[in-house]
């Protein structure tokens, strides 16, 4: 690797913009790949494969080639609605898993700094809060209040913006009612079925940290399944 390439990589890292390092293993020559920026002639033929690595957030050698791709992917945005007890454990788990968490809760006594030190907490109703957060298909939503007034607007936003993971806490009955409301508001069965409800994988536990674990496990699994 040329020293100038190394310097350029360090600069890119500082700017926190996504990129990949593409290395020709035969020659040791490297270049930087960025979305929507042209690659060199030599690497151009591999653009599809490079994009695949990017999407799957993985590093590796392109099949039948001597080209190594190392991706620099920003943390995935996870929005938690409801600064409840489970959320406190979710924050702990997420820290070591490269998720960037924001918490929305209009109820000030829940979303206090004391309960969530060093956390980005938006003390507003979801419709207002989403004006402050940029969201897209790479965003995940975890709705934890099981209060329709707070959860529903967030779920609707997430469905419209096609979040790759949407989960909502609540019993089967609560979830049925929720689905019914969304249907009445004009959401399709396909959209409604994309919501993970009741949220989390079955671990059997009922305590707050156990539920948080089951949610985070489902989130990680869905993150890797994402296309």
């Amino acid at each position: 690797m040329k020293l100038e390439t190394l310097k350029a990589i360090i600069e890119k890292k500082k700017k926190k913009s996504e990129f990949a390092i593409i290395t020709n293993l035969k020659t040791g020559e490297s270049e930087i790949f960025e979305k929507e920026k042209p690659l060199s002639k030599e690497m151009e033929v591999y653009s599809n494969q490079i994009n695949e690595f990017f999407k799957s957030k993985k590093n590796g050698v392109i099949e039948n080639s001597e080209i190594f791709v190392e991706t620099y992917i920003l943390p995935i945005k996870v929005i938690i609605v409801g600064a409840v007890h489970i959320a406190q454990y979710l924050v702990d788990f997420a820290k070591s898993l490269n998720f960037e968490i924001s918490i929305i809760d209009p109820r000030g006594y829940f979303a206090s700094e004391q309960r969530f030190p060093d956390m980005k907490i938006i003390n507003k109703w979801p419709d207002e809060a989403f004006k402050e957060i940029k969201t897209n298909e790479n965003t995940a939503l975890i709705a934890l209040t099981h209060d329709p007034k707070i959860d529903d607007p967030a779920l609707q936003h997430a469905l419209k913006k096609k979040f790759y993971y949407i989960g909502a806490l609540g019993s089967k009955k609560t979830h049925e009612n929720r689905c019914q409301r969304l249907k009445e508001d004009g959401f399709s069965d396909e959209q409604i079925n994309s919501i993970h409800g009741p949220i989390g994988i079955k671990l059997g536990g009922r305590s707050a940290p156990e539920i948080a674990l089951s949610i985070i496990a489902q989130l990680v699994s869905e993150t890797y399944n994402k296309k």
Partner: protein
Amino acid sequence: MKNSFDEKILEEAHDWVKTNQKVILATVIQTWGSSPRQVGSRMIVNEKGDFSGSVSGGCVESAVVRECIGLIKDNKPCKKIEFKVSNESAWEVGLACGGEIAVYLEQVN
């Protein structure tokens, strides 16, 4: 998920270069079976054999350091090395987990 933005090994490599050290980047580029560190894991080695970071759980680092010093001596730009359990050197530096890894060595120049 790994957050490559938080890893500081390339920054450290740059610091080493600034103090006139010769630096080799050793990067895990492929793994087969179970292996201790994922693709993209990296260590850096200088001409004296000082190193930082890791490419395995301590199983093959000593061999990587030797290879890196060799690369600097021969003044070669890059080299790919593989560690397999079936290697004769397995007793010495094999991967106890039974996995195989390919490590790519390249000089910063």
